[in-house]
């Protein structure tokens, strides 16, 4: 197959991380460096300590060479995450409005810009991120209970979190739709075409009852 099944109709987390790496982020170069005209970006000349925006993947490359400082995202601090967590725990019915790629971003910054955080800060931040994810995951499970063929309401869920449940949700919702589709819509049903032969179902038992499922001998009523 041209595309392996595991990549069809979904993304891998690595792919989402890849997408996040295209985002522009702020850096402060340590050295002068000539600008570059790339395929998908134009990077201006870099002057030491002059803050500029570059694609994240570019920042990572420079950072690995110790050629720039990366500014960590504003929300990615202990205080802010604690506030998010408090809010997250405070409302069982909604998700807090973290950036829609908060999981990708935090992982990238922890991996490639660990020295931009205060000493000992990262374990705490990681812990908070994990707690947030956990609290939200429980809400997702609760939210999924409202799944039907119409829609699913999960405010502010992030891209990674959606991707995690994407196939599950589309599978189940898809089945809902298929099952619903087996029924003739009510308004059309009255004009039942007489020429269409209907199947008959034999009663396996003798009992009779109003509610078909209450006994063995239910009959299907074809006429309404």
């Amino acid at each position, binding site marked *: 197959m*041209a595309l392996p099944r595991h990549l069809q109709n979904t993304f891998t987390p*690595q792919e989402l991380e*890849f997408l996040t790496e295209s985002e522009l982020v702020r850096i402060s170069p340590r050295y002068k460096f000539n600008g570059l005209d790339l395929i998908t970006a134009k990077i201006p000349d870099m002057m030491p300590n002059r803050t500029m925006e570059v694609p994240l993947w570019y920042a990572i*490359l420079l950072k690995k060479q110790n050629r720039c400082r990366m500014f960590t995202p504003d929300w990615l601090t202990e205080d802010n995450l604690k506030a998010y967590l408090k809010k997250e725990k405070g409302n069982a019915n909604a998700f807090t409005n973290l950036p829609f790629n908060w999981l990708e971003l935090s992982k990238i910054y922890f991996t490639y810009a660990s020295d931009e955080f205060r000493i000992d800060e990262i374990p705490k931040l990681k812990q908070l991120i994990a707690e947030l994810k956990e609290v939200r995951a429980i809400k997702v499970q609760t939210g999924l209970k409202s799944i039907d063929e119409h829609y699913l309401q999960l405010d502010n869920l992030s891209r990674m979190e959606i991707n995690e449940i994407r196939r599950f949700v589309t599978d189940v919702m898809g089945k809902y739709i298929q099952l619903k589709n087996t029924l003739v819509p009510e308004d059309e049903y009255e004009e039942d075409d007489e020429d269409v032969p209907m199947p008959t179902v034999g009663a396996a038992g003798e009992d009779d009852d109003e509610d078909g499922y209450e006994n063995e001998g239910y009959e299907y009523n074809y006429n309404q």
Partner: protein
Amino acid sequence: MYGDGGIKLINEAKRTQHLEILPRFQDEMVRHIINETKELQVIASETSAEPLHNPDPSDQQQTQEDRRQKCLQFISKLAMRRNKRCLLAYERLRSEKMDHMAWNNIEAPIQNHHEEEYLREYESNLINFKSAFIDLDLTGPLVPPKDIFIEVRGLQNVGLIQTEYGAFDVTESSRFFARSTDVERLIQQGYLEKI
């Protein structure tokens, strides 16, 4: 019962569905289904049976007796189509596995020469398609690129190593950036280590 052979074949396909390799072609099962279908064709053509379902209004004259007689033909036609579906679904899955082999350059002997021929044709189709995108390696990795360059440290005195990015003098304690594909083997061999 008609169609039993078909379902056997499909169960076999399902069993091996997730195998990466192409399982043995079920010659006998396929032949059995072909033979059954041929027999069904004979039965079905014995009378030029009109379809029993969705009878056409001009069909008013058709008596119950006719229709009873034709029921066998009718079922035969159903069974023929059923057999065909089983065969096609079986082979479709196999063709997908062969496509997979072509994309991933998996070399494995294929016994059935028709399948062998299909694979060769698909490979050349692919080569043709790829030639329109010579700057891309279409069969290249489908995982996003990551750490194309890595920083490595020499563990032994190896000497000069030539890569696309120049020559590196690998000595104990030398450090440099290199394309990870260039130094992969040196790392495996224990000459270098990733920092």
